[in-house]
């Protein structure tokens, strides 16, 4: 399997969004609406400005700085990037601290395992 030249271009982006768990459904729907057909979701714990809580187990106290979040990864064609990011931000926003982030980075290549389709066809 060869990818001539492809690796120099950047025609796909990966969007990583860290959101509050209960917003997942809304974000998913928002993305589907604008035609993002696939994404991968991971359960994560987030540390940030949103202050954690103290847990007390008998003698031992812990400050739990890590709060449950959900990470959404979606690889999209450049053409879809802005719309996708906008959709996520809109759907995930509560206005309260801890709403999360969206990170964008380049993807050099994508392959659909089933068909070996590459590039935009794969996502």
């Amino acid at each position, binding site marked *: 399997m060869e990818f001539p030249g492809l690796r120099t271009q950047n025609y796909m982006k990966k969007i990583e969004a860290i959101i509050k768990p*209960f917003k997942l*459904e*809304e974000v998913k729907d928002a993305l589907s609406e604008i035609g993002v057909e696939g994404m991968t979701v991971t359960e994560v714990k987030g540390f940030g400005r949103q202050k954690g809580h103290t847990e007390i187990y008998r003698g031992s106290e*812990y400050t739990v700085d890590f709060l449950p979040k959900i990470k959404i990864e979606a690889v999209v064609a450049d053409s879809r990037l802005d719309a996708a990011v906008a959709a996520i931000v809109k759907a995930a926003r509560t206005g*309260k601290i801890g709403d999360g982030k969206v990170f964008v980075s380049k993807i050099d290549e994508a392959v659909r395992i089933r068909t070996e389709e590459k590039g935009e066809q794969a996502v």
Partner: protein
Amino acid sequence: MKKLIAFLSLIAVISCGVFPAFAADAPAPKLEDRVTDLEAYVTNGARQTNAATALAASPGPGHNAFQMVSAALVLFMTLPGLALFYGGLVRRKNILSVMAQCLGITGLVAILWWLCGYSIAFHSGKPFWGTFDWAFLKGVDSTPNTDYGAWVSHNVFSMYQMMFAIITPALIVGAIAERMKFSAILLFVTIWMFVVYFPLAHMVWGIDGMMNGVWNPNAKIHAIDFAGGTVVHMSSGWSALILCIILGKRLGFGKEPMPPHSMVLCMVGTGMLWVGWYGFNAGSAVAADVVAANAFLTTTMATAVASFTWGMIEYVLKGKPSILGFCSGAVAGLVVITPACGFVTANGAVIIGLIAGAIPFFFCYKVKNWFGYDDALDTFGVHAVGGTIGALLTGILARNSANANLATNLKAYVTDSALQPLVWEQLKAIGLTLCLAIVGTTVIAFIVKAVVGLRVSEEVETIGLDLSEHGEEGYHAEGGI
């Protein structure tokens, strides 16, 4: 251990005062009477109170053993049974809150019970309220109280009944899960016990209770409730409905998916509930006698049939029989048979099982969505609906052949026909219970709302009650996250 000897001699000592007939110096009780008393123990019959035999003041081992085990089984229903059944159905961030509510209610109610709850509920007094003579369980010792169990220690009976008083408010938790303040729950339960539970228990089970159809000839309503269809399930279920309506829906209800965080825990809880329920139902005979035996059979058949029915309805209507379906059916069966178990036959139990698998199903799947109230874990759909159906079916299916006491004490009401007079008595009892629960809960809810507020803040609800209200999380991965 050797204590026995000691104990015997004590009995002797005591007796000198209490039962001269038994004292060394007095003529011994007739052998005839002593044998009759022994026979009474075996058949759970009336004690020889005229002649004071060696058995005087002693519980009967078989019955006492059964009652202690039954009490333990009923506690098992709440801890951890109900805590698991409910806890498995909530979201992960609220699992501990449900468990804390069960544990908190257990401690709280036990204290109220010792304080005066038992006395109010079971000491003879007014038709709807006892007295304070047994406050602090004063005088509630190991000697049987023949009003409630000729051969079971009074203190064991009081503890057995305490387990009922504990699980009843705990059932309400299901409807208001994931959003009610812990402090509000404690306050609500405290008042609710005095306004709803203690009076209801007295009316239905108190020896002079106004709805105690079997044992109180002067009852205003000649209704019957073997193990608590009205006292336990209707009272908690209807109160739960009102409370969850006043409380309002959970944030995101209907929008976000809120699947059970662990159907596994829920199923484990169901198994424990079923097993523990034998203490609840058969134990309500307050003896390991013929009535208990019948209750054991009817409880088993109704539950198994209801569980299978619910599952098969899903199979037909939804294409998939779910664990939650089998579990809900089992619990519904247990609820509906509760008031009936000591009064119906095996076939009556099977009929009850079929109905218990169908009607609550209908309420949980359809009615709830029609009205759109957020009865989080279906306390209303299962316990209120089930308890009400149960009370009614008890009226329809109670048979003299199933319980001799009906023939003796309710001849006029139980005529072994579907529309026997008892049915109307049951309807009256249902009405009264319903009103008490609904009115009582409404008033209390608003009082509590005024005093401490009912609901947690949006932020607390979002983050989850475990972290915010109890400072703990249900599960931790490696690294403590």
